[in-house]
């Protein structure tokens, strides 16, 4: 249980540390463009990826750094990709919001809201024909469900009972607009019955809860039970993107969210257990910080892509 706690903590902390480091690298001008961080939402990718196998497909959004890390992509490549360097990931061509990794079955982030959902349905369609038994999981945000593509994708997957799992990371905001103002339903999972598929709403800040829900959905999908939707409630601890000052958030909202976020929860349970437990988490923090720092250093050692390579890889 204690080991389990540190493992959970490490899995979350490495993502948090990565995101925080991205913010300082952005500030220092080492990462170009705008970046969308998942601080506070880490339990969703961590819990979900624990329920997946190597043969499964993962499709996410511009807020997908946490998924990439939970899926096992290299921290060095991720930092290098975000820095616009010649990373093994996509050679700096994708950047923060659009990278992908075939060898991880990571179909990629996507910076068109809900734009990845039809693609994820396609991965599920492939599974229905290739006998691989793989499942396709796709994560989008709350606001993305209002895109036409989300609707078409869900019905398409339902009609053919494709092995698809949709995780809606409901952080209650779409950029700067509260989702409650953009739908007339209480829970986004209420959209599921309209497609004839199961939908559940869960606490997205609890790794175990997320893992369990995704395991159910993956088992159903793998056994031919078709697609389902998991609404994972969470909260963004930072702005929509690197430059967002969050003037639109009620004062105190972020502070209280910090009371509910996954890392705080684990630290609280450790505190309840005693100083030894807390010390073990502090140790994890130190390890994580060191891991991140060496990854940044290694990424900095990767050169920028050769300008003349810009015209390569357009066609077969």
């Amino acid at each position: 249980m204690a080991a389990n706690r540190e493992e959970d903590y490490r899995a979350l902390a490495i993502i948090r540390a990565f995101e925080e480091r991205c913010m300082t690298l952005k500030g220092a001008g080492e990462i170009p463009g705008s970046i969308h961080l998942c601080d506070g939402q880490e339990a969703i990718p961590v819990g979900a990826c624990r329920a997946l196998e190597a043969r499964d497909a993962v499709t996410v959004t511009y807020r997908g750094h946490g998924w990439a890390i939970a899926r096992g992509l290299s921290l060095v490549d991720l930092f290098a990709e975000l820095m616009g360097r010649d990373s093994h990931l996509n050679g700096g061509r994708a950047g923060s919001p659009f990278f992908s990794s075939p060898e991880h079955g990571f179909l990629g982030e996507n910076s068109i809201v809900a734009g990845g959902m039809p693609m994820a349905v396609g991965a599920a369609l492939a599974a229905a024909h290739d006998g691989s038994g793989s499942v396709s999981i796709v994560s989008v945000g709350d606001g993305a469900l209002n895109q036409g593509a989300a609707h078409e994708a869900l019905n398409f997957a339902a009609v053919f009972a494709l092995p698809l799992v949709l995780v809606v990371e409901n952080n209650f905001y779409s950029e700067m607009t509260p989702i409650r103002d953009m739908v007339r339903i209480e829970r986004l999972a209420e959209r599921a019955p309209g497609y004839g598929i199961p939908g559940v709403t869960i606490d997205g800040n609890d790794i175990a809860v997320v893992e369990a829900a995704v395991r159910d959905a993956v088992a159903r999908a793998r056994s031919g039970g078709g697609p389902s939707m998991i609404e994972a409630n969470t909260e963004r601890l930072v702005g929509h993107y690197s430059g967002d000052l969050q003037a639109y958030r009620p004062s105190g909202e972020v502070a209280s969210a910090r009371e509910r976020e996954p890392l705080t929860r684990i630290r609280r349970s450790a505190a309840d257990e005693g100083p030894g437990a807390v010390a073990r988490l502090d140790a994890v923090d130190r390890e994580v910080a060191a891991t991140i720092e060496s990854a940044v250093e290694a990424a900095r050692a990767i050169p920028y892509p050769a300008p003349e390579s810009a015209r390569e890889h357009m066609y077969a």
Partner: protein
Amino acid sequence: MPEAVAELRYIQAVNAAHRWALETYPEALVFGEDVALPNGPFGATKGLREMFGARVFDTPISESAIVGAALGAAMRGRRPIIEIMYGDFIAVAMDQIVNQVANTRYVSRGGWRAPLTIRTQQGNSPGACAQHSQSLEAWFAHTPGLRVGLPSNPRDAYEMLRSAIASDDPTMIMEHRLLYPDAAQVALDGPVEPIGGSRVVRAGTDVTVVTWSRMVGESLKAADTLADRGVSVEVIDLRWLSPLDFAPVAASVHRTGRLVVAHEANLTGGFGAEVAARVADECFWDLDAPIGRVGAPDVRIPASPVLQAVVVPAAGAVVEVVSRILAESNR
């Protein structure tokens, strides 16, 4: 080996290419609206469901999902061939084609490939409304990452579709329903050609007409009319807008000194402008006359055939522009 040759209508050639693909590639999938059990709105997929079962299926009326599903399936090892019933409907799936499909290979630096074929048919037919009459190839020829082909005859309908399906790049095949009844001898088991390549369909010495799709036939008619007037027209069927096979165009203009580009799409911003612009740069010193273009005037397509007759370009428009160019030339 003995080459099987059959007399096929354009639409039958499309059907034969599908059959070839499903037989050749176990990973091939065919899907779209009404393509399976109903045998396809135009018969392009006739009999395929019966022959190949679940690899051929009908979908909901959800073009974004159809294109996206083809992309995801292609990224994961399938070789989808999808049908968008009318070119006009592609507009509801533009994001999936442009922002998703076209980016797959390049942005992943070759990590992913998207071997998928998007088939559609476009253009006007008598009485068709403004939402069933557009020629939209210029959108896709302006989208790096896609291949774009417009077969003008049964042989190309078969060969170009096979090339598209065999290719590991996402390819759009834009047919023209008015050509579907045309029949010709088609070699069925010849080697699959790589994507690309134009064809000189009529040799001539006075003016080069570059064209594609339905306007190839119209341009050949125009060439006959002009021949009676002593004008020798060379007609090039561009076949593929991407990759653009420019060398033969340049070589022809070098010989004729004059160029007219003809397409059914609206004139302004049509791909004819691209061909003209390339020639006006790379072949400038070969030109003895202004470059002429034929296309629909810049209006929507009205449903009344009486109005369509003056909006949808045909042989007459080609004759007119070629004649003007000759009149304005310095020979």
